[in-house]
């Protein structure tokens, strides 16, 4: 019990100050029948640091980590190289073990980082303002739909078939309870996105259109027409970005007319971590700022006239507004926002563009090589660092068999869209700067064997 500093003699002294006989006396308000008299049965006792580390390391070794295999998974989570200084800096105790900066005089470190983060995110996404982060991309996406409802007072959201199916699931779950109507169908294996169909689907009841960019199959399309169509109908355009590195190469959603842009920031600074914690990005036009969910940091001055930062517009938030808040969110993803911001600062615009360029170039090389494998067709004509292959057999089985050969070869559409069996031959392949020419060749050869 190495983390508990009180000694038995401390405990005795403290009880006497309190005027209690024993610790049990302090639990007198617990009904006797619910009071446990000893430790809970069936659970082990405390363990030393060495024992715990050994146990956890043994479990860790049972996984095939991405760095140990040719690795091509994406579909909403991307493996990028994170400079060692990022992890060093986020482990500074003053960042790691601080609370939400409610006492700004002694939290300027966190607050200035959040202010810088908001600015970086807004610029990256091409928006006026951004908040200080959300749980992840999928919950940010749902929050955007809710925000569109509040702004337009309409309850029907039209979701692109190219939107990540888990994001759709999250929205469906919530909509079941809030009564929002969601329009969505599974994608088809087509080089063209569903932009035209979406435009046709917008009507006067539509609160927003939600489009992913690049979409779940890796396709990219100009969003200006859909922004125009949405605005014409009094609806908003919500754009979802699951791979923010792409925005070092392709136009920003905000610059194409998006009203709200949300995203998954995990690619920059955060890492894979088996799905979490991740980092929800949330940005919008200036005029909607007071409808935005989540924490915001703003500039101000202190009593001595010095520039400083504080959490602001908290009248939108639950701890002030309670049931009238724009969201129930309390904790956000502060440390991940810090990691994102540090990584982005290290990159700078030049580094981000280089990174994006390298991703795209390697993806092009991989697409060219893989589509030469017999039984493989490249679906996309446009993509950034992720594309869809159409295989000669069900991709679920292929993925499992490749894994047995030590190749982590993409995400099958069958897993992502279990209810759409006709796209089951699709395989989504992501290629980042961490992929080598040898990895691509190993993947191609394993795929060739598998499809032979």
């Amino acid at each position, binding site marked *: 019990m190495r983390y*508990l500093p*009180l000694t038995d003699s401390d405990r005795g*002294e403290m009880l006497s100050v309190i*005027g209690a006989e024993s*610790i049990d006396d302090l639990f007198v*308000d*617990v009904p006797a029948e*619910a009071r*446990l008299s*000893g430790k*809970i049965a069936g*659970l082990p006792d405390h363990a030393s640091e060495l024992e*715990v*580390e050994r146990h*956890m390391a*043994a*479990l860790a070794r049972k*996984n095939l*980590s991405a760095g140990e295999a040719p690795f091509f*998974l994406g579909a909403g989570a991307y493996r990028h190289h994170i400079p060692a*200084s990022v992890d060093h*800096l986020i482990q500074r105790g*003053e960042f*790691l*073990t601080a609370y*939400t900066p409610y006492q*700004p*005089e*002694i*939290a*300027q*470190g966190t607050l*200035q980082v*959040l202010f810088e983060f908001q600015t970086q995110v807004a610029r990256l996404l091409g928006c006026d303002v951004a908040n200080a982060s959300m*749980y992840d991309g999928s919950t940010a996406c749902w929050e955007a739909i809710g925000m569109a409802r509040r702004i337009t007072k309409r309850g029907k959201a039209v979701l692109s078939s190219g939107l990540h199916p888990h994001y759709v699931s999250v929205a*469906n779950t919530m909509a079941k309870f809030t009564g929002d109507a969601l329009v969505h169908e599974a994608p088809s294996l087509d080089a063209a996105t569903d932009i035209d169909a979406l435009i046709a689907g917008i009507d006067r009841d539509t609160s927003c259109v939600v489009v992913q960019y690049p979409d779940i199959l890796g396709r990219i399309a100009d969003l200006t027409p859909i922004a125009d169509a949405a605005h014409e109908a009094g609806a908003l355009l919500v754009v979802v970005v699951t791979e923010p590195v792409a925005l*070092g190469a*392709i136009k920003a959603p905000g610059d194409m007319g998006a009203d709200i842009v949300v995203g998954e920031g995990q690619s920059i600074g955060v890492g894979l*971590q088996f799905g979490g*914690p*991740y980092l929800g990005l949330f940005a919008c036009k200036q005029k909607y700022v007071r409808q935005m969910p989540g924490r915001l940091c*703003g500039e*101000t*001055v202190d009593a001595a006239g*010095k520039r400083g930062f504080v959490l602001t517009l908290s009248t939108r938030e*639950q701890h002030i507004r*309670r*049931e*009238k808040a724009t969201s*129930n969110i309390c904790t956000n*993803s*502060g440390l991940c926002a*810090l990691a994102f911001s540090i990584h982005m600062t*290290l990159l*700078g615009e*030049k580094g981000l563009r280089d990174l994006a360029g*390298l991703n795209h170039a390697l993806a092009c*090389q991989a697409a060219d090589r893989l589509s030469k494998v017999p039984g493989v067709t490249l679906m996309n004509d446009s993509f950034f660092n992720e594309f869809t292959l159409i295989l000669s057999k069900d991709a679920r089985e292929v*993925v499992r068999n490749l894994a047995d050969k030590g190749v982590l070869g993409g995400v099958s559409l069958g*897993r992502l869209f279990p209810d759409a069996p006709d796209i089951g031959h699709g395989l989504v392949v992501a290629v980042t700067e961490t992929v080598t020419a040898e990895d691509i060749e190993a993947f191609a050869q394993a795929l060739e064997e598998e499809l032979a």
Partner: protein
Amino acid sequence: LEEALIFEIGSTGTTGVDFGEIPPVASRIGNLARTDSIGLPGLSEQETVRHYTRLSRQNYAIDLGLFPLGSCTMKHNPRLNEKVARMPGFADLHPLAPQSTVQGALAVIHELAQWLVTLTGMHSVAMSPKAGAHGELCGLLAIRAALEARGDARSVVLVPESAHGTNPATAAFCGYKVEDIPATPDGRVDLEALKGRLGPDVAAVMITNPNTCGLFEREMKTISDAVHAAGAFVYCDGANFNAIVGRVRPGDLGVDAMHINLHKTFSTPHGGGGPGSGPVVLSQALTPFAPLPFVERKGDQFVLVEEETAEQHHRSTFGRMVAFHGQMGMFTRALAYILSHGADGLRQVASDAVLNANYILRSLDDVLDAPFGASGPCMHEALFSDKGLAEGFTTLDIAKGLIDEGFHPMTMYFPLVVHGAMLVEPTETESKAALDQFIMALRSLAERAKAGDEALKGAPYHAPRRRLDETLAARKPVLTWADPALAQAAE
């Protein structure tokens, strides 16, 4: 202690990274290339390290001293947990990797789930909620799904006045009407008022236990029985579970759903505002409605049950709450913390947390008003009020004064049921010496505020900033940096 913004010192042409040669390829981006400047400044690696190192030094943190924020549970964050979370076998794992390649990760989720279920005496646990408030949402959605499954539409959620703001916000967020339950003068839920309000329109009661006044709800079982008798469910806000872990099982008190803040009870770091993690333990009645995904053990294999693999018995799930499986990085940390303590140590956690809080309560109740001091021992936090301070002196003054004494302030003005509330939670990881120093500091501030020491109103004096103008910030929000030169030109 001035640190310029990255936008003031960086430039878009500077970078702290480099990449190998970019091979020339035929672009597949078409006419969508981003050609305009993005406006993202870069710094060299050395400048980056300096910028963030210097900024960090403007923060207070548990690593620097006691952090007595009531209800927030700022306890020591062991570095073992950081090390474990960074093992490549956990950190470098894709959420959609084939299940055969992530058996160790699924085992972690399953092992942690078993601990949570056993410690709470509940039936199952939903692991994916991302934080406490997200856990509340999960619990209410399960309740709503259970009610719908029996064709019982109900529209109201009852919440005590003293609840965390997230409780009413969550209930509203999933479409419920929120009604307050009053408190008794001794700081607990008014059982009679609650019973009087129960009826066929009430879906759930949300109760925090131990409550935000730092007290155990003695009548919890009676409340649960009454709620169940009225056909409703009991949601317990588990933010304060650290006060009772190993000593009371919420399942024994009739709770149907309760979130557990891993970052509070099990010490995953708060990180300046998250990420948290809020698994929700569920009663047997709610288990069928639990969200996807789910980890199940089948023989010596672990299976991730998701849309593709959900079988008959998960068909009643209310759906998915989040893109992947929850906060894996927090699961590894929390499990390491739990294993380090074991069943014996976790019981001691609650004991010491409560002992420390009572020690503070009784060491200061002669100089600070303790509104529920007569209501029995407190649990893990000690509640004081501003009653008795000199005219014009407030809780805020005491809080800011603590900064000058080298401490983080306690929680101010919460719970709302107490005027000028000061909620102090020391946690079990503080030593007696640290408590004594804190008590001495708070005592001296209380005496100064009672004596009307005007200097206190200007505190803090010895912090990176003096009091900040929050009104200005809200009235004219500046949320992003704009180049002053450009901003001026635009005017």
